[in-house]
């Protein structure tokens, strides 16, 4: 996707990243305000522990500060870049944990994270972000269930495609194709 298809928000994000690359702390503060909510939500969804998620988020923002100069707009939007950075830091943390423990808490996830009073979404959060999130959830929930399931296991649970194939009893190629089709549909429907 080139410059001509970038949204105003994406262009503003790139400008902020460029300023951060030059050491601008006020741009960094603004980017933190814009992205910390979604990135923290992602970290919490994957780690299921608010203290761990906060540490991961701190690592991510320090990485953004250190690596802003290496951001390449040809490879992804700023938002996707920071999401994938976050996911990578979270996966490092998950790997450091006992894998069996991680699998044991999968089924008790959402109750736990939603009950954490310190992290419940504040009323001051922007309506825009909530609208966008609601739209993504709607599109995701309306994907064919087998595609949504494969994507969620890969993205949030960080199961390998081999593990997903074993868990769902499907051939490896089928799982790869479901992930690919689901991601493309998600992208196409969000662009409308």
């Amino acid at each position: 996707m080139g410059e001509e298809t970038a949204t105003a928000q994406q262009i503003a994000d790139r400008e902020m990243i460029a300023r951060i690359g030059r050491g601008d702390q006020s741009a960094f503060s603004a980017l933190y305000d814009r992205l910390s909510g979604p990135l923290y939500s992602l970290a919490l969804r994957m780690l299921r522990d608010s203290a761990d998620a906060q540490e991961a988020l701190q690592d991510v923002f320090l990485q953004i500060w250190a690596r802003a100069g290496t951001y390449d707009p040809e490879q992804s939007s700023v938002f996707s870049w920071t999401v994938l950075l976050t996911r990578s830091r979270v996966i490092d943390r998950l790997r450091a944990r006992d894998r069996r423990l991680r699998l044991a808490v999968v089924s008790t996830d959402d109750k736990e994270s939603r009950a954490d009073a310190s992290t419940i979404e504040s009323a001051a959060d922007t309506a825009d972000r909530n609208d966008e999130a609601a739209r993504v959830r709607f599109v995701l929930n309306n994907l064919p269930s087998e595609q949504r399931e494969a994507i969620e296991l890969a993205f949030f649970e960080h199961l390998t495609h081999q593990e997903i194939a074993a868990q769902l009893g499907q051939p490896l190629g089928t799982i790869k194709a479901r992930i690919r089709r689901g991601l493309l549909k998600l992208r196409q429907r969000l662009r409308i």
Partner: protein
Amino acid sequence: MISEEQQDQAAVYVLGLLDSAEAGAFESALAADPALRDFVRELRDAAGDLALSAPAHTPPASLKQRVMREIAIKAKPSASVSIQRTALTWLPWAIAAGLIVFCGVLALDRFRLQRELTDVRATDPLMQTIFFTLSPSPPAPADAKVTVAWQPSRQSGVIRITNLPAPQPGRDYQLWAVDAAHKDPISAGVIRVDENGVAQLRFRPVDRAQQVKAFAISLEREGGVPKKEGPILFAGTA
């Protein structure tokens, strides 16, 4: 035109699900194909959107204060450097001049060494050989070992395999060279292991390889296929 197989591989690559050998092979293909790079960018942005589907939470305000303190500390050394720069503006020029002289000496020495190395390479076949170690991916047995010795100038190589059971009837193992100048892997022929799970043979890719980035072995229909269809069992870079 991006094949469905490449599209599938791109999706799992974006989610970080490929092992390092597979990711290396995919990145080689990515470097050579602008359409594939655009496709990967689309998938990355889709993956970014996925994060918004997580239940929304806000981090505590104290976290921002901690992060801002940390970056203020990291930013300080550059401030002191800029003060020194003002006071000692001549120093970088002096260092640069010294480096230019030093680089000139190094360049002469490098030229001499390169000539010697070229002479040695021209006469010693071992010096022209690149070694690849291929790592197994399920369902290949974890203790199977595959090594490839590749001689670009001769466009041929030797592969050695141990601890790999014969495939089921109707199937064959097939070797592929992942080349920087080719969109698809180049077939290097079918490989048959003996009853002890061992194979050692010389091979030659069906097409000329310019710069082999990786070798891979897939499980294919008996007799082999012109274009890879089956799952990758082994892959590795030099």
